[in-house]
Every structure is written in C-alpha cells, then in structure tokens.
C-alpha cells in the first residue's frame, strides 16, 4: 500500500520534469483544448496530438507503458461512451441490412474513444512528470490573481499540499484497519451493494476518528513551528521559468496552430 502514490509521479531529471510546473499546467490545459479543437473526421489532427504525446513522453524519459497504464482505470468509461455512441447515433447508413449501427455511428464512437484517450494520456503526462508538491505550488501561483477577490489562495494551496502529504499515511492506516476488522470476521467481499456499504462502517469510523486526531496533532505541530497564515510568510521554493519553458510554450503553440490549420485546410 505504501507505494501507492497519488498521481503516479515518475521521478526523473528529464527536460520535462525540470520545466516550471505552471507552464506544464497551462500546457496541459492548452493540449486538452487542442484535442477538443480537432473536428470530427479529422483524424490527422489526432495524429498530431498523439505525436505530441509521444515526443513529450520521450523527452520526459517516462516509459510509454507507464503513460498507457493510466488508461486502464478509465477503460470501462471509454467502453461505455463508445457503446452509447454506437447505439444512439442517428444518421448515416446502416452497416448491414436493418442494423441499427451506422457507419457514422462507428466513426463517431471511434472519435470519442480517441478523444478520451488523448486527453487522459496528456493529463497523466502532467502528473507523471510533476510531483504533487510542484503541482500544488504551480496551482497556487497560477491562482494568485484570485487574491484580488479575497480568495484564500495560500490556505487553499496549503490544504492541497497537506492532503497530498497524508494520502499515503491514510492509505496505510486504512490497510491496517481493514486487516484488523477482517481478523474479527468482517467481510467486505460478499453481499449486495448495501451490505457491502454497511460492512465499511467499521473501517470508516476508526479512519475518521484517527483523521481528526491527526488533524489535531498536526495543527499543534504547525502552531509550534510558528505558523500564522500567509502574513509575513516567505517562500523557499521559487519557480523560475527557463529556456525549457520557452521551448514548451513554442511546441504547444505549434500544436494548436497545426490542429487549427488541419481543421481549416483539409477537406471533408
């Protein structure tokens, strides 16, 4: 259980890892926009996005199967979307006499699958190459303008990074409590949904109580280390964009331009 790390960060010192997290977050958003810009039937646009993913993966020195494995988790969702498209798409010629699956339906299902896959690949590249701490820092920095409307940016970021810090600890604890209750005959595997949900009570209550205890102790420890909100606070980690980020921005710009060009220039 200990090795379950949130977002599956893959440590390395690659080009992509060293990029400014803010640039990476913005790039990921831009990439997702690009994927959604690709219009129906322009599979060339998808090819461009896939190429981008492949190049980034290579530059990040992340094994490609690691990137792919993120898809496993959403496979059911993808399958469901594809089936829905297949069955409910109206228009087009049926593939066989009297059949309800049409050529357009098939295309549109393939299109949706490609779109979801590409979005997930891109997002997982972000979490694979950016540690949770960097992500939190990046988001905090990007949200800074919200301070003008009194949004508690610093507190929000602190909550996020503490949550990330405690995920492995709580997973460990869950594992321990599950085992302790199993040893007392608890059964989490059989019965219907309601029975299983009820079986979780002996795990959730101790977990909740221990989380409160931890929160209490953590608050004491933070107070003891002179925590007093964001006032007068300095920051040790500083994010400085480098030439890498410039290159990243250029590549993104190229991708989006490419997709838009493909959309407008190619026939269909």
């Amino acid at each position, binding site marked *: 259980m200990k*090795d379950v790390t949130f977002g599956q960060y893959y440590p390395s010192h690659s080009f992509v890892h060293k990029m400014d997290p803010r640039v990476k977050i913005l790039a990921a958003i831009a990439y997702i926009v690009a994927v959604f810009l690709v219009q129906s039937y322009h599979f060339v646009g998808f090819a461009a996005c896939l190429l981008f993913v492949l190049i980034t993966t290579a530059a990040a020195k992340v094994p490609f199967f690691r990137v792919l494995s993120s898809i496993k988790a959403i496979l059911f969702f993808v399958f469901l979307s594809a089936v829905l498209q297949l069955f409910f798409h109206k228009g087009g010629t049926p593939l066989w006499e009297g059949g309800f699956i049409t050529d357009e339906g098939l295309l549109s299902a393939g299109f949706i699958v490609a779109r979801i896959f590409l979005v997930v690949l891109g997002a997982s590249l972000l979490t694979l190459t950016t540690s949770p701490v960097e992500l939190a820092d990046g988001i905090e920095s990007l949200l800074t303008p919200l301070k003008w409307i009194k949004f508690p940016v610093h507190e929000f970021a602190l909550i996020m990074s503490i949550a990330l810090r405690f995920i492995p600890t709580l997973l460990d*604890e869950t594992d*321990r*409590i599950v*085992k*302790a*209750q*199993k*040893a*007392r*005959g*608890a*059964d989490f595997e059989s019965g219907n949904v309601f029975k299983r949900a009820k079986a979780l*009570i*002996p*795990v959730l*209550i*101790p977990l909740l*109580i*221990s989380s409160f205890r931890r929160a209490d102790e953590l608050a004491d420890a933070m107070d003891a280390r002179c925590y007093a909100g964001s006032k007068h606070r300095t920051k040790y980690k500083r994010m400085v964009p480098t030439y890498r980020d410039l290159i990243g921005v250029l590549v993104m710009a190229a991708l989006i331009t490419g997709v838009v060009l493909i959309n407008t220039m190619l026939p269909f």
Partner: protein
Amino acid sequence: MRIVAENLSYVYSEKSKSLAVQALSGVSVTVESGEFFGIVGKTGSGKSTFVQHLNGLIKVGKDKGKLTVGDFDLTDKRCDYRALRSRVGMVFQYPEYQLFAETVREDVAFGLKNFMPDLGENDMEERIKTALELVGLDYEKIKDKSPFELSGGQKRRVAIAGVIVTRPEILVLDEPAAGLDPKGKREFIALLKRLHEKFVKTVIIVSHDMNLISENCDRAAVFSGGRIVAVGTPKEIFTDNEDILSDGLDLPLTAYVTKRLKEQGIDVNNDLTEEGFISAVALKYGGGK
C-alpha cells in the same frame, strides 16, 4: 492447534519489478500448541508479514511453501478462512484504533456476530461478559459506555476483549505493549500471562522488546531479512549467538550481563529470566564466600 510453516516465502508487489520486496524467504518453523512464543526482529525483517499469514490475512502464494494451523491447510484453495480467523485471534499494534461501535458491548460483539451469527442472545451476552472480565474490566460498569470516552489503557483492553470473545485457541499480538508506560506495560503483560494460563492455548507475541521476550516466552524466533536466523528457548537464542548481535538487535539485559561475566571466566548459568538470573548470581556469590 499446532502451527507448521515450511519454506514459506512472500513477495510484496511481485508483479512490479521495481517495487517488488521479498518479505519472507524460506521460513520454516513449528509452534506447538500451548506455547508462549516470541517473534523478534528489526522493523522490516518480515515478522509482521509472517504472523499475518497465520490467519490468512496474507494468503500463501502458489509455490511459496506450506503452512498449516491445526487442521487448516492454508495452501489449500478451499481453506475456510472465516473458521480459521475465529480460531486464531489477531491483535494489531495500537488495537484501540480499530474501535468503532457506539458502545463497548457492541464493539466486543462485532467479531461474535460475524463469526457466530446463530449464537443466542444469552450465550452472546455471556461471552461478552467473560471477555471483558478476562481483560480486567467491569462488565456492568463499562458495557454501555462509548469506547471513545475510555482511557488509553481501557480502550486497548476493550479491543483485546473484542478479539478473545470468539474464544480463539491461538492469540497473536503485534507489539502489544507499545505506547504504554511502565506500569501499564507490567499490568498488560500480567494480563497476557493470565490469558495464556486460563483461556488461550497458544500466545504469539511480536515485539522489539528483548527483555519482554526473555522474561515471558517459552521459545522465540529471530527474524532477519525475511528469514528465521535463530529459534529456541531465550537461553538458546540469546547465548553464543553472534548473528543476533550483528543484526543490530540488542540482547536482553540478563543475557548481556551473563555473557560479559562469562568472558571474565565467571559462569552464571541461568534461563535468562530476571528471577533465574538473580538466583544464579546470588548462588554464585554465596558459593564463593
């Protein structure tokens, strides 16, 4: 129920090459029915992994050796884990953190309801009462209280009552005295001895505390790097056993002093319990005068 492990191995995250950890490699040991058995070793030596096999919380992998507990063959796919778990009680570290019910009575009843759903009201109450009294709590006073309003020591006792309520033959405890102060610890060990005498046949204790092991256990096994490097009476494992020292484990105080004396040519042969040691030294001193 006798425990026989033969060549038991276990690997965490076996599928992933980078994360795989060999937690046990080729552990063979027999724990006889009725023993007060100790398991020692550093953190990460495999001792917790081993004991979690004993009630099937960790299943014996294919080609990973053999394990039988009484008539239960844990290598057999058809092994009835529910029945096994009601016979092998397991108390984890800081067991008070598993309490969840609204009342002490409810919490102690949890295991009973899981393992013996057909038990009548009266029988159930009788068992709960016995369990609470065995751990030194006043049934009438405590049964309707919330477990969360009790003191740390009381919580731990309630948690143990919740395990022994099914009357297991084997009781496994992982670091049972952790976090207790000296008095609490002494009382707790006394409680375990009492349980062992009257109620549970076999007690297995996992602990870092060598003094606790040498003072209380009939036999003990020393784990290191997923293997058992020594097994026997405290005297056997803590005498002339450089393996243990080289692994960074301390000797019990009695064993340390006995060893130092022996190096000086003074032989105080004893069983390494406090009483045994004190008697041997007193005898030696008296004999020399």
